[in-house]
């Protein structure tokens, strides 16, 4: 069932409810006029643990790539011990094909800020860092300005309307990245926040226990936190009335696909952009209805359906349902960021694989040998094959290298190498 009315994009004109051309940034006052900050007021009157319970009951899953249930993550925090506790908001958004968080950041920054404040109150986190990728210059200015407005209106800082959180006045700061894909990985992001190289950490300990500066830290994606705002206002049941829910016959502890999601579609379609629809919408609907189809003369061949790290859907999988079960159903790595690049009939898959290999070899942080060396090796071989100089032996070698890389076979620290090897 299609989404009836926009939820996250309520204030951001988007077809079929509005026009891209009418989008503009909402100021604090605009946002309050659109009923903004009501969920925060509601949260202020609640016990922190009751807020966490609602998010848990809604089974809101992380929208940054891994799909981990947010409420569950929040409940992993240890009890308060008097020391600082942090929130890191992941707006690194460097996964190729992915450009959804920037739309929220650019046009409705206070929705994100409200979600951040609610999370801080629910989890008793006193300091939040908004980690935004270095290349989002225009967005950075907008968000910086929105933070200043939030301080001026008593959301953060001394005399915050939230009162003291974790025995301190709550603060939100913007942190600018500096051009490194790997800093989107949550522990690399923390290293970068601490002023170091973005090198993922070996887990455990998990960030909820020992994260930024060795203290308990929650890391969530921008879209995940924004979704907390309507969930709190309307309740868990409302949220669960949208999306495709749990696969038939699955026990209740299996994470499901509830609620709407942002989908960014790019490539040779008539109207590329970021749209909102229920989880479970088909790729075909996204392309044909939301994006008004392919541009004339181009045919759908395949798609990177969730950023490039999750694999591809082929021509026969055009009607795949975009939900968290896509990995199991269609044998790929998962929904990822749910941002799809459409590959047309006249682009070669070898060229695409080569592009991905170059990306991963370039963005590898270099800590793990299989990832650092393997990525580069794959890239060189694919370049050779694309130039027409490949041999049959190359194919065997490609497979051998690819299957030796990744945290799945247990040879690397983080998931970058898993994203790198699927293409082969």
């Amino acid at each position, binding site marked *: 069932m299609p989404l009836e009315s926009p939820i996250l994009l309520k204030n951001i004109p988007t077809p079929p409810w509005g026009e891209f051309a009418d989008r503009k940034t909402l100021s604090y006052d605009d946002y309050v006029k659109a009923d903004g900050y009501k969920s925060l007021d509601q949260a202020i009157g609640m016990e922190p643990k009751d807020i966490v319970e609602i998010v848990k009951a809604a089974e809101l899953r992380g929208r940054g790539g891994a799909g981990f249930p947010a409420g569950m993550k929040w409940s992993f925090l240890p009890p308060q011990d008097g020391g600082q506790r942090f929130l890191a908001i992941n707006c690194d958004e460097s996964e190729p*094909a992915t450009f959804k968080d920037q739309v929220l950041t650019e046009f409705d920054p206070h929705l994100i800020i409200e979600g951040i404040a609610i999370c801080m109150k629910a989890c008793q986190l006193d300091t939040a860092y908004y980690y935004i990728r270095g290349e989002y*210059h225009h967005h950075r200015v907008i968000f910086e300005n929105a933070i200043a407005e939030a301080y001026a209106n008593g959301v953060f800082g001394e005399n915050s309307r939230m009162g003291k959180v974790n025995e301190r006045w709550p603060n939100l700061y913007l942190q600018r990245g500096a051009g490194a894909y790997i800093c989107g990985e949550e522990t690399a992001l923390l290293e970068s926040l*601490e002023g170091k190289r973005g090198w993922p950490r070996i887990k455990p300990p998990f960030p909820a226990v020992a994260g930024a500066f060795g203290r308990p830290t929650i890391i969530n994606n921008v879209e995940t936190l924004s979704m907390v705002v309507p969930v709190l206002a309307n309740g868990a049941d409302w949220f669960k009335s949208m999306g495709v829910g749990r696969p038939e016959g699955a026990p209740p502890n299996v994470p499901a696909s509830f609620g709407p999601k942002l989908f960014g579609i790019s490539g040779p379609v008539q109207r590329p952009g970021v749209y909102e629809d229920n989880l479970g919408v088909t790729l075909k609907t996204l392309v044909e209805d939301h994006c008004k189809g392919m541009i004339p003369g181009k045919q759908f061949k395949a798609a990177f359906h969730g950023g490039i790290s999750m694999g591809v859907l082929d021509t026969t999988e055009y009607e795949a349902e975009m939900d968290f079960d896509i990995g199991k159903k269609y044998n790929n790595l998962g929904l990822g960021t749910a941002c799809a690049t459409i590959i047309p009939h006249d682009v070669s898959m070898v*060229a695409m694989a080569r592009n991905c290999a170059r990306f991963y070899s370039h963005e590898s942080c270099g800590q793990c040998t299989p990832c650092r060396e393997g990525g580069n090796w794959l890239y060189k071989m694919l370049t050779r094959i694309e130039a027409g100089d490949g041999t049959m032996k190359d194919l065997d070698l490609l497979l051998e290298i690819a299957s030796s890389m990744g945290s799945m076979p247990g040879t690397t620290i983080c998931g970058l190498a898993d994203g790198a090897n699927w293409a082969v």
Partner: protein
Amino acid sequence: MAWITKQSGTIQIDRRDEPYLTAEIRKDFESRMFPRYPDKQACTIPLLHAIQDLHNWLPYQAIEEAADFLGLPASTVLDTATFYEEFFLEPRGKYTIWVCQSVSCEIMGNTKLVEKLSEKLGIGPHETTEDGRFTLMNVECIGACGGAPCALVNHKLHENLTADNVEQILDGLD
């Protein structure tokens, strides 16, 4: 490439008397930035950005000054600086053109853009023109895939570029 290692310790450092780390930046960090974090090291990246925004690149002397200011060994700050693609440890052009080469942009024809710009500026990717005006960078996804192919010129984003209109992004630059 993120994992390129640091230059060897024998490197000759060009020095000048005037510090790169200005009194203004120091003051701003002491009053506004240090209180944000539990320790000073966390200010490394914001500080490097501040210095680079002012001088357009990060000379070794500036790295040393930053390290001194943060109470860290220079090697630690250099370690961080060399990891990130946005930090330039060598002089670059007044305008840096970042052309995206990731999947959406490749599908939508980015290679023609780079060719055209290379030809027009007489430099290849990761090179700077002799007059010091332009540096051309081939980079990975810049998060504007809906407007592919796209490029940043310093902080300004240009979308839906073609071989025909790509030169326009140079128009109006002094």
